[in-house]
């Protein structure tokens, strides 16, 4: 995760703020101490809920007045009703879940749109580190040694795209981050991006055919305007 000073908003949070419609219902899965939910409630007046595994994180969220439930993305998403949120956010957590495919599928059962970010294992620094040193990479995006990292299901941008295709998901928006720099729109299908993007952020929804099949609620609401216009 990117470390930032108190008053500086994380770049991926800034991007999520831009993607989320004001007044919508947002579930933040793995919400930590609630920084993103706090931002979303204050700046986008969202009706925010959170799921967080750590007791200290949940207690901090509750002290901030956020509706956060202590739980595990692998186990507790099943209890949320269909389409109870407009957005489900999973920030830098997918690679730490036991069943990423199930989690992603669940996010898009619970919410119309999933906003998912993850470190790209195809980034050139990761590849270089493995190639040159023959050791598990330790980079800015993946700072911990293999024996202590919570990341158990790392993937590349290309891997992730393949999974979205398998689940018949539509990419509504995507952005790349490097270091603590701002978001940059990217073409996820470009082979070059699989080298360049250090961290990727996607907004996904179900393709219409799947939507009809899985969600009797019918058509998704249209995304208003340019996704990156803030």
């Amino acid at each position, binding site marked *: 995760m990117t470390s930032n000073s108190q008053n500086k908003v994380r770049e991926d949070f800034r991007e999520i703020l831009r993607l989320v419609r004001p007044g919508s219902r947002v579930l933040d899965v793995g919400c930590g101490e609630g920084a993103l939910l706090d931002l979303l409630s204050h700046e986008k007046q969202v009706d925010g809920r959170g799921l967080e595994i750590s007791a200290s994180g949940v207690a901090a969220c*509750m002290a901030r007045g956020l509706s956060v439930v*202590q*739980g595990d993305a692998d186990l*507790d998403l099943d*209890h949320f009703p269909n389409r*109870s949120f407009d957005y489900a956010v999973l920030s830098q957590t997918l690679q730490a879940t036991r069943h990423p495919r199930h989690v992603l599928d669940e996010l898009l059962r619970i919410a119309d749109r999933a906003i998912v970010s993850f470190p790209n294992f195809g980034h050139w620094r990761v590849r270089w580190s493995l190639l040159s040193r023959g050791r598990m990479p330790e980079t800015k995006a993946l700072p911990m040694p293999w024996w202590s990292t919570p990341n158990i299901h790392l993937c590349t941008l290309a891997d992730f795209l393949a999974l979205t295709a398998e689940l018949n998901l539509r990419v509504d928006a995507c952005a790349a981050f490097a270091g603590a720099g701002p978001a940059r729109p990217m073409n996820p299908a470009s082979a070059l991006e699989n080298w360049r993007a250090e961290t990727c952020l996607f907004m996904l929804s179900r393709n219409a055919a799947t939507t009809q099949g899985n969600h009797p609620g019918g058509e998704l609401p249209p995304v208003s305007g340019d996704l990156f216009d803030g």
Partner: protein
Amino acid sequence: MAALDLVTHAGGGTWRFPANEPLRLDSGAMLEGLEIGYRTYGELNADKSNAILICHALTGDQYVASPHPTTGKPGWWLRMIGPGKPLDPERHFIICTNVIGGCMGSTGPASINPATGKVYGLAFPVITIPDMVRAQAMLVSALGIETLFAVIGGSMGGMQAQQWAVDYPERVFSAVVLASASRHSAQNIAFHEVGRQAIMADPDWRGGAYAEHGVQPGKGLAVARMAAHITYLSEPALQRKFGRELKRDGLSWGFDADFQVESYLRHQGASFVDRFDANSYLYITRATDYFDIAASHGGVLAKAFTRARDVRFCVLSFTSDWLYPTAESRHLVRALTAAGARAAFAEIESDKGHDAFLLDEPVMDAALAGFLSSAERDRGLI
């Protein structure tokens, strides 16, 4: 100083309902001439939107922030109530009622049965948690309050808070459930049965009619309390507090209280007898054993809360609570989530056992204060 302020703010007494307003019980019986002992702290605001109901636990009472009339001990939740604390009589109108079936001013088995002019004893009808809540709702209405800003309770009080949300969702803005469960487990029922059998095995119980004979089944009630008290503490807390420490040098080679823990439990039992009625203990433990919210909703807990999805819930459990373990709170929270209710839930790290909710737990204080102030903002109170 804080205690003094509270006393000057305190009100309450005994509310007596007229005979034409009986309490309808789940058993089908009617309780006429219902009396409810209660205390209040603070002032009800002009639009009556700042009322908080605190629901007490099994052997608690309405003296949540005032000295107990029998023991003289300070209020049982003073650490949560007071100026600058999460429950603040400067801002909130705080109500605490003695549950029906109790023995501190509300109608219970030690009250006079209007039909016979004698103490009820076992003629008192069996009561349930929903009955307790129905009686509280009558009092809250009588005080002119339509909607409670919050219903808060730990343990059996948490059962009442859940029941309020289920039965009166439109009258509850937020509900706080501490160290509680949505049903009694086999183990919960088993421990209660030990306590009840201890009382009923005391020859002075006299089939529940001890009042008529001018005696008290004090020994049985004390044993019931001793057994129950162990379930309120965690093993590490007992070990830390007493270990194998002896009361005096050397063993007695007999059955005196050699160990500090024995002496402590004997004291807990003996002092409980001074302030609690044995039949009340039977009736109230029974009410908690019968408690099972899902049972009246097709066995599906989430269904019970579908009408309560606008209520804001705060659920807290404690890691070392083996009486109402975290799994029970999680079961409730999953049902609330499935019902689409707004819930906050945390398991708080503590080695103090079930009683942690009554003790110094700063993380609980911060979580509760955060939850309440956010609910106050939503309610337009601040």
